[in-house]
C-alpha cells in the first residue's frame, strides 16, 4: 500500500490542458465543474510557469475537518473521498480547501449549491466499485481496476504524475538534478507539510454510511 499523491513538475507543464480535458471526458463531468485545472503563473512574462492543480488528497484534509455532516473519508492509500449521499452542499469545504478543489453545480442559484464534486484520484466513491451508481456520482473508478488517474497517465510531457508519493518525489528529484533546477512540488508543503509526509501504512477511516 502506498501513499497516493499528485506531483506537477512546473518545468515540464506546457499548459496544453489535456489533463483537464481527459478528466472531464473520463468522468463525464458536467458543465461548470472543473475537477482539475491548469493555472499559469506570470502569464506572458519571463519565467511563466503552468501548474496542473486538483484535489491534493491532503494528509489532514481541511475539507473533511470542517464538513458539518462529516461526509469525507480517506482511504488506506491516502485518497480523500466523499459521499454525495451525505453531502448537503453547504460550501464549507470550499472555504477551507487551500487548492479550490471542491466544485459545486448551480453555484448561482438561491442558496442552491448542489452536491459537492471533486477529484477522486479516479477512485470513485463509497458505492460498490465499478457500478453504474458510482460512475454517475463520482465518475470512473480506474483505481479499482489497478490504474492510476487518467490525467497523469496521459500527460504528454510527464509533467503531471500520480502514484506513490515517495516514488514521485524520487523521480522529481532525479529530474531536478539532471536539469540543474526545479521549483519544488507545488502544493506539497500545504497538502502534506514538510515534516508530515503522510503515513503510507496508516489505515483509512473507511466508509461510514450511518
Amino acid at each position, binding site marked *: 500500500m502506498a501513499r497516493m499523491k499528485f506531483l506537477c513538475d512546473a518545468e515540464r507543464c506546457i499548459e496544453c490542458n489535456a489533463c483537464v480535458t481527459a478528466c472531464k471526458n473520463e468522468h463525464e463531468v458536467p458543465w461548470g465543474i472543473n475537477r482539475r485545472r491548469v493555472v499559469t503563473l506570470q502569464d506572458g512574462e519571463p519565467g511563466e510557469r503552468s501548474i496542473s492543480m486538483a484535489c491534493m488528497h491532503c494528509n489532514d484534509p481541511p475539507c473533511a475537518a470542517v464538513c458539518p455532516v462529516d461526509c469525507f473519508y480517506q482511504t488506506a492509500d491516502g485518497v480523500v473521498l466523499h459521499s454525495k449521499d451525505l453531502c448537503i452542499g453547504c460550501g464549507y469545504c470550499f472555504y477551507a480547501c487551500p487548492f*479550490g478543489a471542491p466544485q459545486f453545480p448551480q453555484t448561482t442559484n438561491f442558496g442552491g449549491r448542489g452536491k459537492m464534486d471533486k477529484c477522486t484520484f479516479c477512485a470513485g466513491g463509497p458505492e460498490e466499485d465499478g457500478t453504474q451508481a458510482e460512475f454517475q456520482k463520482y465518475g470512473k473508478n480506474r483505481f479499482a481496476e489497478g490504474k492510476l488517474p487518467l490525467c497523469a497517465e496521459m500527460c504528454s510531457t510527464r509533467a503531471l504524475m500520480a502514484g506513490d508519493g515517495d516514488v514521485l518525489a524520487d523521480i522529481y528529484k532525479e529530474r531536478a538534478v539532471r536539469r540543474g533546477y526545479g521549483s519544488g512540488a507545488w502544493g506539497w508543503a500545504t497538502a502534506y507539510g514538510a515534516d508530515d509526509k503522510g503515513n503510507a501504512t496508516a489505515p483509512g477511516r473507511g466508509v461510514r454510511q450511518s
Partner: protein
Amino acid sequence: MKAFRHLLVLMALLLAAPALQAQEPPGLYKQPGPNSPTSKEQVQIYNPAQDQIMGRVSIPDYKLSLLVQPEGREWREFRMVMLPIIAGAIILGIVAALLLFYLVRGPVRIVGGRSGRLVPRFGTLDRFAHWTTAVSFLVMALTGLIVTFGRWLLIPLIGHSAFTPLAEFSKVAHNFFSVPFVAGLLLMLVLWVRDNIPERADLVWLKTMGGLFSKHGEHPETGRFNAGQKGIFWSVIFGGAALAVTGFMLMFPFYVTGIGGMQIFHVIHAVVAALLIGVIIAHIYIGSVGMEGAFDAMGSGEVDENWAKDHHRGWYNQLRRRTGPADTAAGVGHRAAE
C-alpha cells in the same frame, strides 16, 4: 539613416535585457547555475508554504485561477475551535446566568397584583412584525446551530444517514426564512424606531437596571419602551442587519466577494449570531416566565393596567391622557372571563 536608428533600438533592447532579467521574481525563472543541485538530497521538494498564489486559467471559471489560498487554514481553525468555544460560552453562559437569576430573584411580579382592567399595548401589525421576525429568527437560530454543532452533538446520537436529511432541511430552511426575517426586521424598524430613540431618562433606568435586581424596588418611569427594551431593539436591528447582509453574501457566492470575503463574512455571521441568540434568550426569559404579565403585550396585545403602571408609567399616562379614564375609554375594558 533609418537602418541606423533601427540598429540603435536593437542595441538598446539588448543592453536592457540583462536589466530585465535581474528584475524577475525569484522562484519561477530557473537556470542551471553554481547553486544547482548535484544530488537528489539537495533538491527541494517541499517549497516553504507561501501566501496566496494567483495565476490565470484558460477555462471560463476565472475564480479557479487562485492556485493556493492558505487562509482556509485560519478559517478552519475558527470553524472547528474558536466558534464552538465562543458560541458555546455565550449561549450556555446566558442560560446559566438566567437560571441563577430566576432562582435568586424569581419572576418580576406586578406590585399591586393584576387589576383585571386591560390596556391595549401592541396592535395587530405590531404583533405581526414581532412574531414574523421572532419565528424566522428562532428557525434560523435552531437550524444554524444544527449545522454548526450537529457533527459533534447529533451525529453520535442519530448517525450520519439520519443527520444528512436534517442538515439539508436546516440549510434550506435557514436560507428560506431569511426573507420573512428581513421583512419583519424592516417592519419593526418602521413601527418602533420613533419610541426607541435613546433619551436622558434611559440613564435612570440603566442606573438601577429598571429595578430588576431589587426584589421590591421601584420602577423608574419609562415611556413606551424602557432602556432594556431599547437595547434589545437596537441589538436586533443592527445584529439582524449584520446577519442579513453577511448571510446573503454567503447565499450568493461570488456575486460580490470571493472565497476570502466569504470566510470573513462567515466569521462575522457566526459571531453576531451567537451574540444575538444570547440576547434573544434573555429577551424570551423576561418576556415569559421572568415577568408576570409581560407576555400579554405580545400575546393578546393587551396588558394589565397595573402592569402598565409598573413598567411603563410614562407611556400609560400618555395613553390615559389620550383616551380618558380606563373604565370608559374605547379599547380599554374588563376582561370578561377574569
